[in-house]
């Protein structure tokens, strides 16, 4: 007889990240997954759900409260302990690096939990990567808009064609060993301050 399916509770204030984790867990065949964004009333939720595994993001300022509750609350029928496999420091480090921690119900076999922790780690890392890329893309878009505005300023003030205006910007950036977007930013700021109708 195969063991009963594990009930997993994910506590994460970040809705996008928790959706990504939930999807990952479901794909891996865990279909009893509950997501909680707000720790208000968490003791009652735990009593209702009776989770075997609880996954928490490390940014949650309520972590001390949750750890204490797992040990003491009457709502928790069986003690819940942090998942620590001392023989496996690599995965503990990977979890803390990724910003996630897992707690398990007393008596649960560690091997059953490990794939869940691994899944959470990889999804947390994927989310960080995605957030970083999004930030970079946003910066890139801003940069492109700035360069267009700087080109326009040069075309107007120096009577240059578009290609020449761009070439001048690039040359300035190379000579000054600065990023093209930074040069464009300086130019736009200067034009706003000094130009006609400048602020």
């Amino acid at each position: 007889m195969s063991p009963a399916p594990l009930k997993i509770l994910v506590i994460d204030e970040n809705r996008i990240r928790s959706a990504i984790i939930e999807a990952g867990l479901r794909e891996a065949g865990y279909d009893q997954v509950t997501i909680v964004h707000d720790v208000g009333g968490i003791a009652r939720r735990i009593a209702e759900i009776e989770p075997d595994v609880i996954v928490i993001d490390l940014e949650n300022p309520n972590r001390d409260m949750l750890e204490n509750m797992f040990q003491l609350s009457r709502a928790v029928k069986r003690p819940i302990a942090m998942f620590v496999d001392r023989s496996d420091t690599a995965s503990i480090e990977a979890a803390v690096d990724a910003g996630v921690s897992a707690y398990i119900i007393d008596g649960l076999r560690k091997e059953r939990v490990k794939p869940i922790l691994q899944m959470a780690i990889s999804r947390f890392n994927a989310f960080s990567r995605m957030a970083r890329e999004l930030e970079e893309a946003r910066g890139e878009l801003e940069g492109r808009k700035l360069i267009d505005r700087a080109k326009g300023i040069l075309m107007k003030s120096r009577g240059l064609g578009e290609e020449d205006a761009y070439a001048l910007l690039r040359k300035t950036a190379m000579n000054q060993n600065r990023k093209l977007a930074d040069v464009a930013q300086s130019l736009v700021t200067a034009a706003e301050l000094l130009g006609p109708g400048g602020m």
Partner: protein
Amino acid sequence: MAQFQINAGFMPLFDSAVLVVAREIGFAEREGIDLRLSRETSWANIRDRIAIGHFDVAHMLGPMPLACNLGLTPLASDTIVPFSLGLGGNCVTVSNAVWDGMAAHGALADLDPTRSGAALGRLIRARAAAGESPLRFAVTHPHSGHNYELRYWLAGCGIGPSREVEIVIVPPPIMADALAAGRIDGYCVGEPWNSVSVVGGTGHIVTVKAAIWRASPEKVLGVRKSWARDHPEALSALLRALHHAARWCQDPKNHAELTDLMSKPAFLGQPAEIQMRALTGRLDVGGGEMRQVQDFFLPFDKAANFPWKSHALWFYTQMVRWGDVRYSPANTSIALDCYRPDLYRAALKPLGVALPGANAKVEGALTTATPVGSAGASLVLGPDGFFDGRIFDPDMLDVYIEAQATGLQADA
């Protein structure tokens, strides 16, 4: 190029000031240290990150290193305490409704723990007789000065901390909101999180740590034992930097700059005015009633940075008292080895710093400020008494632990 790089974790609380100042005012740099500070969101994160080596040292609750070494927390590494980050700094705050109830039972706005504790006891019994639910108090962590001093005060006033009230855990920045929302009835936390409720008009300060136990330990520098062993020079340099930073924090002429620095979002992120209350000990206890508290928070004076073994042992007696840990020779020996005045002495003696003659003291023995000479420099200790007049003699643990397990003080 710095000679040492040290990674330190801290929580956004006023008593992280000594670490913040060591970096920001340049005391660490002067000792050849690149001190890298990481702001954390929970004590659990600090514990985890010091255990896996992200941090070498950290701002910690005084009893936390003991809890780590006594095996009370998961993923904990052996942690030692070579430096204390200050004495005092906490208050007990209650909701306006509880304060009104206490006032009706004889409490005055004088911060007197005995009078207010008696009033709270009468209120609790009146509520119980009327069939009302027990009052719920919050502290920041089970292994904290807050938890143990709140329990010590309640028990000393004849209130069973585990039987007659409920004690829950709430993170400091959320305390005032939880009180305003009626989720808790009172709390014990460090400043400025008490004054935040007073300013918001939702809470009243009942008493202060300095009244429950004057000149008592609060936050410490926790150091991973293996790191300390492998980097003795870096540790000594850090303790010198922290010593200079602590003296700078105590000096009133730096208080404006200090509160300005701590008001930055990267550190405490609370207005300078509200922080000043902890530094001057001049508190609005509620509704504009001003009280002046002696030794409210000491970052440096009265040997505030000396890691007294008697402080660690008192925390240990409270862990035994409330059932966190068994009283045994093995545990006593762990508690005795956790705080390391020898490392403090070794680092600071070359500076000609005034050092206490002993590594432990009888807590509550000094009823007045007392000069204790050593190494040619002057040092003033005390007064350091408990509100109930009891004495803690670290050489007589058996007697102390037995006394607190019997009579009115028994609970659970």
